[in-house]
């Protein structure tokens, strides 16, 4: 949101029309994927969610074959929970904010929906992103407080600092940055998670907590994790992540900051071990 003539999608009350929706479906893990196409009537304001709901109420493909309602993940429907992420027309994004008035404004327009490919499929468009949350454990993404009793306020911080932390903290663990990253690959074996590339999402979260007055107590542990196998040095600097992040989180800055911090940390550790 910059100027009045911003690049915001121009959404004007579109006419009711029928669009074609191609969906890559899958009945479960280790099952083959297949494409199904649906014809769906849409009106003004429709989004991928309302399209999937319409299909769900009457699941019949374009050639008249009855099928099952499509399975997908969603929550807030206002692009703040991260649940509904999928690959739409080849690009990963949230489906709730994907408006038909922008993507399919005309009669007969087509849209394709696929599940993310870097996470194991549960069914249809729903994938299992546990690894994303697991990586938050890997970098101890929390402030180590002394319990929940009243001990007064937290550390004060200036507005600049709190705005930066706020920006980092709006990460909704959606996984777009991981889907787009050439270094981040599908890993179904949980035992490999701790050594596979951790990805921009958790690196940026490590920065968030290292930047907090109390959070920095665990800075060393976080940097240790990021220096290990699958840590920050595995990033190939392709910068895809920052381009797809819906929250415009400065991921490459975070990666650079954590890269520098791990270097300093390594030197400090080297000196310590040679004391």
């Amino acid at each position, binding site marked *: *949101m910059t100027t009045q003539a911003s690049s915001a999608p121009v959404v004007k009350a579109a006419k009711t029309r029928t669009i074609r929706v191609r969906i890559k479906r899958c009945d479960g893990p280790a099952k083959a994927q297949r494409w199904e196409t649906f014809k769906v009537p849409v009106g003004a304001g429709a989004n991928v969610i309302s399209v999937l709901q319409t299909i769900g109420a009457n699941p019949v493909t374009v050639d008249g074959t009855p099928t*099952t309602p499509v399975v997908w993940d969603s*929550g807030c429907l206002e692009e*703040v*929970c991260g649940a509904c992420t999928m690959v739409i027309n080849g690009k990963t994004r949230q489906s709730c904010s994907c408006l038909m008035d922008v993507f399919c404004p005309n009669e007969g327009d087509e849209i394709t929906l696929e599940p993310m490919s870097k996470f194991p499929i549960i069914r249809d468009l729903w994938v299992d992103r546990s690894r994303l949350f697991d990586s938050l454990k890997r970098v101890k993404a929390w402030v180590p407080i002394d319990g929940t009793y009243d001990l*007064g306020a937290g550390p004060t911080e200036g*507005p600049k600092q709190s*705005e930066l932390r706020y920006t980092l903290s709006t990460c909704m663990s959606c996984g777009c940055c991981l889907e787009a990253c050439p270094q981040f690959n599908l890993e179904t074996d949980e035992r490999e998670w701790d050594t596979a590339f951790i990805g921009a999402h958790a690196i940026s979260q490590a920065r968030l907590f290292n930047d907090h007055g109390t959070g920095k107590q665990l800075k060393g542990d976080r940097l240790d994790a990021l220096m290990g196998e699958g840590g920050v040095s595995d990033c190939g600097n392709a910068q895809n992540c920052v381009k797809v992040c819906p929250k415009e989180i400065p991921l490459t800055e975070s990666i650079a900051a954590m890269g520098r911090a791990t270097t300093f940390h390594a030197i400090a550790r080297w000196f310590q071990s040679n004391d």
Partner: protein
Amino acid sequence: MVMPNAQRVIVVGGGLAGLAATVRIAEQGLPVDLFSMVPVKRSHSVCAQGGINACNEVARQQGYSEYQHFDETIYGGDYLADQGPVLEMANWAPRVIDLLDRMGVPFNRTSEGRRDLRLFGGSLFKRTHFSGATTGQQLLYALDEQTRRYEAQGEVTKYESWEFLAPIMAGEGDDRRCVGIVAQDMRTMQIRSFRADAVIMATGGCGLVYGKSTNSVICTGGAASRCYQAGAWYANGEMIQVHPTAIPGADKCRLMSESARGEGGRVWVPRKQGDDRKPSDIPEGERWYFLEEKYPKYGNLVPRDIATREIFDVCVNQHMGVDGENQVYLDLTHMDPEYLTRKLGGILEIYEKFVGDDPRFTPMRIFPTVHYSMGGLWTQHTPGSYRPDTQHGDHQPGWQAPIGTEPGMGMQVGAPNNMMTNIKGLYAFGEVNFAYHGATRLGANALLSCIFDGLFCGQGVARYVKEHEPAEKPSTAMEASLFDSAASAEQTKADNLLATVGKGKESPETNPYVIGRELGEEMTAACTVVKTGERLGTCTSKLAELRERFERVRLGDAATWTNQSLSYTRSVGDMILLAQVIAKGSLERQESRGSHYRLDFPDRDDSRFLKTTIVEYHQGDADEHRLSWGDVDTSLVKPRPRTYGKVDAKADTKPDKEAEPASTT
């Protein structure tokens, strides 16, 4: 690791209430099993935008106090909330904020590095703390992180993508208590039982009963309904908040937070009916700022039920809506765009994203929509020892807090029955209970009540488990058959639903999605802004029809793996029952109070209805949803007319004596 015989607590729901409870209880050394339909970080609390209320030093020096926060909450809720818990919540609020601050919530800061504050509805003081316009997200993440910390230590076990189906009860009469739950894995569809010494329901609201609302897709109220069907009482169901400012949409109505008005947003329509000029071309004098005109004191920041009814009146009765439609302007364009981005960025983006206009330059078009349920599972508490009626006389808002209002005086700290339902061992925290908001919730008080419940009442749960019945007979020592039969009962229900696939002819009559949609439309038409006995009568018959059709419901997916249709269909059945409870309360409460407005009974009637509606389920009875009236504790603040200084308020009502900030800067 946990000993096999160790006591455990189950928390159902990982929103703010559930996570706060989880952390507090895990901290007491009790292992917690945390169930949620979605990864907890994606719970509905993430949607909350505007902020969280608490008395603070700046407001205090202008004459505000915890006591006034309490008073505002009671007045806002039209006296229907029991006063002890509310006083306790207001007293603890500043400490809740401090704790969140320590957890690292990036609250907006002043240039000196202190927490910034904004104005919110129902108060003349700045007492709302916020984190951009995504406060709920930031608070939820902070609690999610603390939960993860305990999870990493093995003290919390998460069951995400598990759906709660039923509580498990043991014993009879006075000994009857909740000792576990039945749940279903939404991926594998496995149904099984889990043992626990206490179960906390923190499953949020029921907006989906109305089809489209501001709520997330999982807010069906299904979990609350299942507890109700298992014998838990449901209270004040008719108290449903319709938020004045939302963006109507095809799949949901997105909220435009009250903070937009708190930061200076103004509501208006053109004075001339059908004026089709661009809003920017309509001069100031030809705009009707109807809220400011009618409520000079609170202006755009009257409580939600009032703003909603005024907007509704302007559009529906006077046909003065913008472009002749049901919409009014919410205007921020007179303000500095940079300031707006800093303070409201998150919500302005939502508008821009979903409507296409930039609200910093074009007034938003908004209309009221269903938002919050003040009613919920009935809960109890142990009152504190504070007795203001004898010691302090009539309190006037704005007075210094009387001596003795320190914590622990409204609700006893650590009492095992705090926020326990009528079923022993079964608790209800957060939006799913009825306790804090009476007949209308003030903006930015919900986040507070959720976290307060988790922390304050979580303490009582730990006491209950360690010192009461569960200590003598933990759930792990109970017969396996009890748990097995509960699980198989739920399995049978699921199997019966699955067996309907392909049976009979496909028809909208028995299509779960169609039934769900008709339910939403009916409830929105009959049970929201303006209710009448006659319309509620029709609604009652319609609900009976939907219920009958649901008996014949026909599922569209036979999958034994990740069957979302099964989960949805089951919740439609549960929502219909909850809708009946809401309609019943609406019909029987023959008065108008807070969010409940009866055109045929437009006045508040304290003599008959300063009472809680409590509904108890008696399956198969002619009077299936048995309603009784519970007393309301009004010992601290005596009911006064709730006019918010409206200029055409009836002459016989005494003017409010509301404290105003000492300085208006």
